């Protein structure tokens, strides 16, 4: 046994959630474990704020030698994700209080959290892979927590895609690690550039991470899983877990050495996701599904930004992507929480919640003055290609529309009980996250956007942020007036035809097999029987005295002839 080397806080940050999860498994502490949920990400948060940059923690006995570091963008990711988990955890203490199956919820919540944090801290590929797998698979248990038919269906789609994604990642990592002859992520990233099969590895990684980040056409799990999960789980799924995919792409794609082809591809799929998410999201009736499609759309923008980073000034682009993720994490987390709050509110209490949700929606759309506007500004500053630039700018119209749709569907969720009020804890955590979304980008803008704060306050950038939102708002208002009937696309759009097709294929395979199995098979006994019968007949002849005498004479003669052959 070797004692871990280096600062212990990163290890503690990972172990703390597990320890709390363990409390949920012990019968004695099971009942009270829920109250501890908000504490689980605390060490991670402390690490994000006070941790020392670029120091390595080594635990050689664990896995293939766990190596943890905290560098650059990881610190921001770690920070906002920890905060988001904390807010959602606080919310969960109230939201889940009277629900059944508390212990599994707490246990898997903590494991998912641990995996999610591990993704940001891992410096070696194995730790990263393990963390990523843990977050992927444990999140499944959050998705299906309610155990309803719908949740289970969503779970199946989720797990199939998650396993596929994990497999793609494993293959990509294998190629990278074999080429690098090292397990450190830094080495692997560099080695991927000209490794044999490096291109394939990059493609696999893009699929694997993109799948987690809701990249078209692998996005289908999001609109199924997010609505199915309990509210706080949806919040972390959309706000934090999806970011693991984004972070993975940032970590592993060898941007420095330029990968124009893959970059272009990422930009294109990112933009497709952005618009596709809006298009399908507009047809949704469930506010959580609308939010899920919005996440697809927003993550599409982040993917496009990362794609645009390839070859250019990657560090800046990635920092901007970090800012975008940070804002989206808080905002989307808060928006998901608002669904639970509105549903628990009577008409009067719902109004402020709806107003806050609308404000957050504006922030996501990039309304000037909001945190979202800063993030968008940082993004646009780093997009050189004019077409992409315009497409990104125009997407804000779609975002506005989509979130307007969200607010409308949300308003329909208000509780029928006039006096119903959400618990203060729920409200508090919602407010905290909303404030974080609106305010925190102000603090990090300079660092992450690489621009002075004044940039975002310039007239051009205000105008730039304002008009798409106004256009979107106008369309939405017009839409409300006309209120045409909107076709409804089932959640998870592509899933429906694909499952149908798979079922048909399975049926055909089954029929083919049963036909094969009906073929008659020769019985080995049947083959042996004639042999035995022939031998028995011969045996009767050998036993006959005359025949045996002849045989002996013949034998003697044979031996004689043989001997005289000398």
């Amino acid at each position, binding site marked *: 046994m070797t004692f871990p080397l280096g600062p212990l806080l990163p290890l503690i940050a990972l172990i703390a959630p597990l320890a709390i999860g363990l409390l949920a498994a012990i019968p004695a502490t099971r009942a009270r474990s829920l109250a501890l949920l908000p504490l689980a990400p605390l060490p991670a948060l402390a690490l994000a704020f006070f941790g020392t940059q670029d120091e390595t923690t080594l635990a050689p006995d664990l896995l293939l030698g766990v190596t943890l570091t905290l560098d650059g963008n990881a610190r921001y990711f770690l920070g906002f994700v920890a905060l988001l988990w904390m807010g959602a955890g606080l919310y969960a203490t109230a939201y889940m209080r009277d629900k059944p199956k508390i212990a599994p919820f707490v246990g898997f919540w903590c494991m998912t959290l641990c995996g999610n944090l591990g993704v940001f801290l891992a410096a070696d590929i194995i730790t990263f892979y393990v963390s990523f797998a843990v977050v992927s698979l444990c999140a499944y248990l959050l998705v299906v927590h309610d155990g309803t038919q719908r949740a289970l269906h969503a779970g199946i789609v989720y797990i199939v895609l998650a396993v596929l994604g994990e497999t793609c990642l494993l293959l990509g990592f294998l190629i990278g690690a074999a080429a690098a002859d090292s397990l450190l992520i830094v080495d692997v990233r560099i080695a991927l550039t000209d490794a044999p099969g490096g291109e394939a590895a990059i493609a696999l990684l893009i699929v694997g991470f993109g799948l987690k980040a809701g990249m078209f056409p692998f996005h289908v799990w999001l609109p199924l899983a997010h609505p199915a999960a309990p509210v706080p789980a949806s919040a972390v799924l959309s706000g934090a877990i999806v970011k693991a995919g984004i972070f993975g792409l940032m970590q592993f794609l060898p941007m420095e050495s330029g990968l124009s082809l893959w970059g272009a591809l990422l930009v294109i799929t990112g933009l497709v996701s952005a618009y596709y998410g809006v298009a399908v999201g507009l047809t949704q009736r469930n506010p959580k599904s609308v939010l899920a499609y919005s996440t697809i759309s927003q993550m599409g923008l982040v993917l496009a930004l990362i794609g645009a980073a390839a070859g250019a000034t990657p560090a800046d682009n990635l920092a901007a992507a970090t800012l975008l993720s940070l804002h989206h994490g808080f905002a989307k987390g808060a928006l998901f929480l608002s669904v639970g709050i509105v549903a628990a509110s009577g008409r009067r209490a719902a109004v402020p919640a709806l107003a806050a949700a609308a404000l957050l929606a504006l922030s996501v759309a990039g309304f000037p003055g909001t945190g979202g506007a800063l993030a968008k500004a940082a993004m646009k500053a780093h997009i050189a290609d004019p077409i992409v630039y315009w497409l990104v700018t125009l997407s804000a119209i779609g975002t506005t529309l989509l979130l307007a749709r969200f607010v409308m569907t949300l308003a329909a969720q208000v509780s029928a009980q006039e006096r119903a009020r959400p618990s203060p804890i729920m409200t508090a955590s919602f407010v905290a996250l909303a404030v974080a979304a609106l305010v925190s980008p102000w603090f990090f803008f300079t660092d992450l956007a690489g621009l002075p704060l004044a940039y975002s306050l310039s007239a051009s950038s205000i105008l730039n942020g304002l008009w798409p939102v106004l256009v979107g708002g106008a369309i939405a208002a017009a839409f409300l007036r006309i209120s045409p009937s909107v076709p409804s696309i089932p959640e998870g759009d592509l899933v429906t035809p694909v499952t149908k097709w798979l079922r048909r294929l399975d049926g055909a395979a089954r029929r083919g097999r049963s036909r094969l199995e009906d073929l008659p098979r020769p019985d080995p006994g049947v083959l*042996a029987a004639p*042999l*035995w019968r022939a*031998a*028995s007949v*011969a*045996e009767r002849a*050998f*036993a006959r*005295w005359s025949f*045996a*005498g002849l*045989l*002996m004479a013949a*034998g*003697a*003669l*044979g*031996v*004689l*002839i*043989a*001997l*005289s*052959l*000398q």
Partner: protein
Amino acid sequence: MIAVTACLVLPLAAALAAIPLGRRAPRLALVAAPLILLAALAVATEIWRTGPAQLPVGGWLPPLGIALVVDGLSAAFLLTGAIVTGAVVLFATSIFSTPDRETRAGFAFWPLLLAMWGALNAVFLSGDLFNLYVALELLTLTAVALVALDGRRETVAAAIRYMLFALFGSLAYLLGVTLIYARYGALDIALLRILAEPDAPTFVAAALMTIGLAAKTALFPFHAWLPPAHAGAPAPASAMLSALVTKASFYIVVRIWFDVLPVAGNEALAMILGAMGVGAILFGSVLAIGQERLKLVVAYSTVAQLGYLFLMFPLAGSGGEAQPWAAGAWNGGVVHALSHAFAKAAMFLCAGLFAEAIGHDRMDGLKGVARTMPLTVFAFGLAAISLMGLPPSGGFTAKYLLLTAAFAGGNHFFALVMLAGGLLAAIYLFRPLERAFAKPAEGSDITPIARWRQAVPLVLAGAAIALGVFSAVPFDLLRIGRADAAQEGLE
């Protein structure tokens, strides 16, 4: 060497004494058996210490007198015979002791068994072709009588067929001996080895002797008398017949081709013997598979197993000139004969116990005996392992040696036959075992068998296994006075 004489005299004397003793014969046998065993052991240790020996009978050495010859080969057979027969004696006491009334079988069994023992020892110790004939005749007569012991119609028929085959064999052998004597004027093995020349009279004599002995050994295709005879005899007698009586004539064939007439042998002869061996292995095994009576399975297994013995001739390189691998094949053949003796005796005794317990020896009656007679099934299983040639057992060591010789000599075909024979043996031996392990049939009642009687075959089967594990000792014993044609060191 008094022990050698004891080996001959003790059993014969006991046989004579058993006739008047009648009901008390089993007790006599129980006293005589350990003494004979001790004598055999003494012979073996003596050989071990001082090497091969030639003992004049009545003080005259050949060519004037006749001699008893003891070397490693004879000592090994002597000892094996003594152990097997001793076990059979012990086993038989509870069957053929008739305290309340005298039966024909109970009366005849003991003198016949003891005389058979004497005849066997005489075969193993004779250094002279005519002596061998006499011993062989005595052996045949006792064997035929034992087959007919229970006097049922079919066993008497089997005994008569056996006698016909055996008489023909004896005649052929005697004719050969006569020719040899006419040609060389000598019958002593050691002398003949020096005198023998490859000429026509020798060839004719050799051909007659070989075929005659092959018929007595029940080598395919002269085997048809064996299954009904061995299956029909009482279990202890079957054990003796299958384990030892067939080996006696095989022993003489080995003596003839390796000690007496190696000069006359050639590859063609070896191939003929080998071909008959192959036929025996395949034919016997196939027939064993289909049998519905356990004793017939075991008997056909003997037919098949005897085939392996004759593969020794082609594999040792024709018997004529020694080959590098000759020692391997020779040892393999002999070890096979010895381990088969143990295993087959054990198996027949087991079959006897099963028959006693369930009242018949049909295979379907064996269902569930693994639960009621675990020791016997265990013994049967151990014996089966040796017969299949699976390790660790004497059967395996033998097969390994034969196989290696086959490959080294380029006789791949024989190797394949041996492997096929092993697989076939597995099929016919696992059939009864499988039934033993099946769930007992409803309402089957079983006569309980004393544990000590179940232990007897277990000891014999254990010996077959031990021959494989501790094979260094018998191997060294066999090396003593081994025939030139089977020497290694010619590499």
